[in-house]
């Protein structure tokens, strides 16, 4: 069940061509990990972890992973924004998104 997600995330590790593609791959990895986290916390026939006024809910899903994923979504957004900013600057300096042409640093 959870294995399927790894396929998504890892398939995109082989993203090698374009800077934007790399960013996209990173985003997909991010999604996969988040989804995995939530799947861990799911309980069969569970209920959302919000108390209702009139009834007692017993079978709730695990709220902790949800809290963690909330954090990690925001982290992902922050990283994406920063990397896009860097990518835009790179485009301005090099005039291309192609990483094989961006190779002034050789080590």
């Amino acid at each position, binding site marked *: 069940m959870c294995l399927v997600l790894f396929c998504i995330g890892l398939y995109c590790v082989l993203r090698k061509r374009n800077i934007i593609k790399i960013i996209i791959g990173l985003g997909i990895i991010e999604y996969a990990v988040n989804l995995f986290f939530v799947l861990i916390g799911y309980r069969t026939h569970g209920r*959302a972890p919000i*108390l209702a006024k009139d009834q007692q809910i017993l079978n709730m899903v695990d709220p902790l992973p949800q809290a963690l994923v909330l954090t990690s979504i925001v982290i992902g957004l922050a990283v994406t924004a920063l990397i896009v900013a860097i990518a*835009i600057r790179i485009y301005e300096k090099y005039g291309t998104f192609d990483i094989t042409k961006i190779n002034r640093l050789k080590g």
Partner: protein
Amino acid sequence: MKNNKTGMTLIVKTITRLTVGLILLYGIYIVLHGHISPGGGFAGGVIIALSFIHLMLAFGRETALKKLSQTAASVLESLGALMFLAIALLGFLGGCLFFNFFLHKGKPFDLFSAGIIPLCNIAISLEVGAGLFAIFAALILFKGLGKEE
């Protein structure tokens, strides 16, 4: 997205004028009710930011920046972050970091309940909203500069 200066077509502008207020209001609603219903500071903050971004996309950046300038956005963001830290520190005075210092927590399901959580939500939403708007404005502004060169 033909031109930043003039914005989009008339239809888009009209619709935007109608919806921006609603989106903003919805963002504020989500922030304030974060402790009783789904949503919260982050989601609400992003929605608030989106309402401004919406404005910016439709009318071009001058109009949006008139409503909320970029410096104001970054100041607001710092303020939001400081406010969050201050809430933490207030708790620190009362016992330890992030101590829930309202002893009276109010009735559950009320708007004014749950101690520090709504306050934290507001602080976060301020920070998130202003911060994301600042990022976006910076990216757009930069593109503008690039074109002139």
